[in-house]
């Protein structure tokens, strides 16, 4: 039903083609499309309106340089404005207090408990903190239990008070205990609540008053629609929170709520949740989010993630092997492992501009390499290092061992040889991932 935002913009920007200057008249249609695209991305009605008006002001009268096409200029104006609205550089949380106290708040089902676990894991592993988690959701069945299970997974203790129905006291006692036992960071999970639930809003205000947090984070589901502004505003009026956490961004929502919240409460988005695992937490990058809302592909994250996972030394070794045509099935296998480490293939490919749409409906998942791996695992060490020895009977054995067919084995070997040739030609491992991806898809029926 919804076209990609960038396609829409492209179409409307085409109307600007060949125009020397951006004028009220020739920009009207584009702005209408921009607005509609924002609404489809769940940007709030009023925010979208203000936004397009600002863009219009910025665009009007701009002389279109001969070097820049008007549609490119509009893309830039829209993108820059979005990024700016999303708020300059990323802002960190305040963990200076001892213990630093962090209060987590939000609607039901927004992902507070999962985020609490992720945050504890992050400060423990990356910032050498000694955190204490506090189970303050005394209402939802098994909520305490849920935090306890997460705490166990990540090796962080969880403060609970058996049978207590008093989140204010729990939070207060937890901070006291942290002080006594030397925990330097306290994360207080709370029950989900609706902004219109007066009693519950008073309760969280009381929790805030009791523990005077260094940081209050408002957790919101990135799939939220128009109501995001009401809720964010109400929570902010009550709690004056310090930052926003945007969850479930590993879904395919455009996440326009991020823009709405930002423009209504003017608080920075500090983290984004990108999966159910405890390490699926990223800091927020305004420009990337702008790209996402615009559907322009999250190319920056892709590069950074790839860099983080790719060992530079190994890359160099690989390059020399490629140059000498010694690239083997073992190297191939380790490349697959690298790619898998980077995260879901579909996520990764989706970050490449233009790829998003192409792979949207493709059955392209982490299992893509399953057969390839099975085949390689069924080879002897010698065969992996020196594929030239793979004669007919060896191939038959490999097919049987990997539960595939001889055709599939043949195809993989052929593709491997082709890849090796191409790589040698290019003389570097730079485009390896792409080649590998092609290969794995080629191997599927």
């Amino acid at each position, binding site marked *: *039903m*919804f076209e990609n935002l960038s396609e829409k913009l492209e179409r409307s920007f085409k109307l600007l083609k060949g125009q020397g200057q951006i004028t009220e008249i020739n920009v009207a249609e584009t702005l209408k499309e921009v607005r*509609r695209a924002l*609404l*489809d*991305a*769940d940007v*709030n*009605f009023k925010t979208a309106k203000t936004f397009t008006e600002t863009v219009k002001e910025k665009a009007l009268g701009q002389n279109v340089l001969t070097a820049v096409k008007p549609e490119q200029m509009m893309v830039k104006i829209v993108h820059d404005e979005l990024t700016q609205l999303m708020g300059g550089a990323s802002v960190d949380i305040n963990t200076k207090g001892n213990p630093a106290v962090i209060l987590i708040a939000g*609607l*039901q*089902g*927004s*992902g507070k408990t999962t985020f609490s676990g992720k945050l504890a894991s992050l400060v423990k592993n990356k910032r050498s903190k000694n955190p204490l988690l506090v189970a303050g959701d005394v*209402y*939802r*069945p*098994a*909520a305490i*239990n*849920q*935090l*306890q*299970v*997460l705490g166990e*997974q990540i090796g962080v203790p969880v403060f609970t008070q058996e049978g207590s129905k008093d989140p204010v006291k729990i939070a207060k006692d937890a901070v006291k205990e942290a002080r006594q036992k030397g925990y330097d960071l306290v994360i207080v999970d709370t029950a989900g609540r*609706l*902004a*219109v639930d007066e009693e519950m809003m008073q309760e969280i205000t009381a929790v805030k008053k009791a523990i005077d947090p260094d940081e209050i984070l408002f957790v919101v*589901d990135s*799939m*939220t*629609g*128009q*109501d*995001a502004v*009401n*809720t964010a505003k109400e929570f902010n009026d009550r709690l004056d929170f310090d930052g926003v956490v945007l969850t*479930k961004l*590993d*879904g*395919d*929502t*455009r996440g*326009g*709520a991020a823009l709405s919240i930002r423009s209504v409460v003017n608080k920075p988005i500090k983290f984004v949740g990108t999966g*159910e695992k405890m390490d699926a937490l990223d800091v927020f990058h305004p420009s990337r989010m702008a790209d996402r809302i615009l559907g322009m592909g999250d190319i920056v994250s892709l590069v950074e993630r790839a860099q983080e996972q790719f060992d530079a030394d190994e890359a160099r070794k690989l390059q020399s092997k490629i140059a000498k045509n010694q690239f083997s099935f073992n190297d191939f296998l380790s490349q697959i492992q690298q790619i898998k480490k980077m995260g*879901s293939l*579909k996520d990764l490919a989706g970050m490449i501009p233009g790829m998003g749409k192409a792979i949207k409906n493709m*059955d*392209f*998942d*982490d*299992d893509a390499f399953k057969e390839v791996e099975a085949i390689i695992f069924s080879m002897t060490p010698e065969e992996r290092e020196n594929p030239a020895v793979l004669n007919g009977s060896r191939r038959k054995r490999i097919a049987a061992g990997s539960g595939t067919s001889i055709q599939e084995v043949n195809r993989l070997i052929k593709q491997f040889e082709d890849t090796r040739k191409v790589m040698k030609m290019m003389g570097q491992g730079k485009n390896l991932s792409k080649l590998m991806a092609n290969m794995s898809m080629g191997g599927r029926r």
Partner: protein
Amino acid sequence: MGIFGVFNKAKKDKLDQGLSKTKESVLQKLARVVVGKSRVDDDVLDELEEMLISSDVGVETTLKIIQRIEKRVARDKFVNADELDRILREEISGLLAENQVNEGLDFELPADKKPYVIMVVGVNGVGKTTTIGKLAHKFKTAGKSVMLGAADTFRAAAIEQLEIWAQRVEVPLVKQKMGSDPASVAYDTLASAHAADSDVVIIDTAGRLHNKVNLMNELSKIKKVMQKVVGDAPHEILLVLDGSTGQNAFEQARQFTKATEVNALAITKLDGTAKGGVVIGVSDQFQIPVKYIGIGEGIDDLEPFSRTAFVDSLFGK
């Protein structure tokens, strides 16, 4: 309308509570712009557009509604605020009504489907488990024997959560360890229900984002495995949508339908300020009826969907 089909006063107040706050002005505004005019002009349409979009109805469906209204107004010539109000309600209900066959729904079950198997699916945190607890209570109150299956074996303490609901409602629950195969739990549940001659089985599943191919395939597998016990199970695949979700609900409906042939919707959290307007377009596009709405976290906070009540609450009446 069935016995449960009418909103009792308390429930309706609860549903209206959040909605009225932001909406009280909509009709007044509409009235202001429409008074003394012989046609629906741009001011009226702008107001209408704002009201619909702000309720998450979405651009496409909003345009569809506005077009229908323009057509009617052109035909009927003069409209005043009251008439416009009535026309609007009719047109919106119309989109929902086209596939709305269960307005008299009363928790009776088809006699030839025993156990009647309901599989509950949806993205993370929308309210699946809570809906199951409330639904079990409704069926039990209607005199049915219920069995629950804890096939969310993935999320921390998901089994315990459903277990507490089972105790609250006093219905049996079939479970295995965390991390076990969800299809196997579903299988066990159906086998137990069969042996116990239960009337209805409700299977909880782990929340999953609809763009994760592996996890969506897992749902298809759960479904297939259930058919080994009850040939035509699951009879109802209930997709739970969070009432505060925006346009992404379309993608959710599309992908879950693809994986499991969803044939019923539930919208939760309508006790908040979110209006759940996206469901109008979803129901219209995928021809899936909305069966239930969630209006709170308590055991009684589930109602059969009524489109009149829904449209009423959309307009703050």
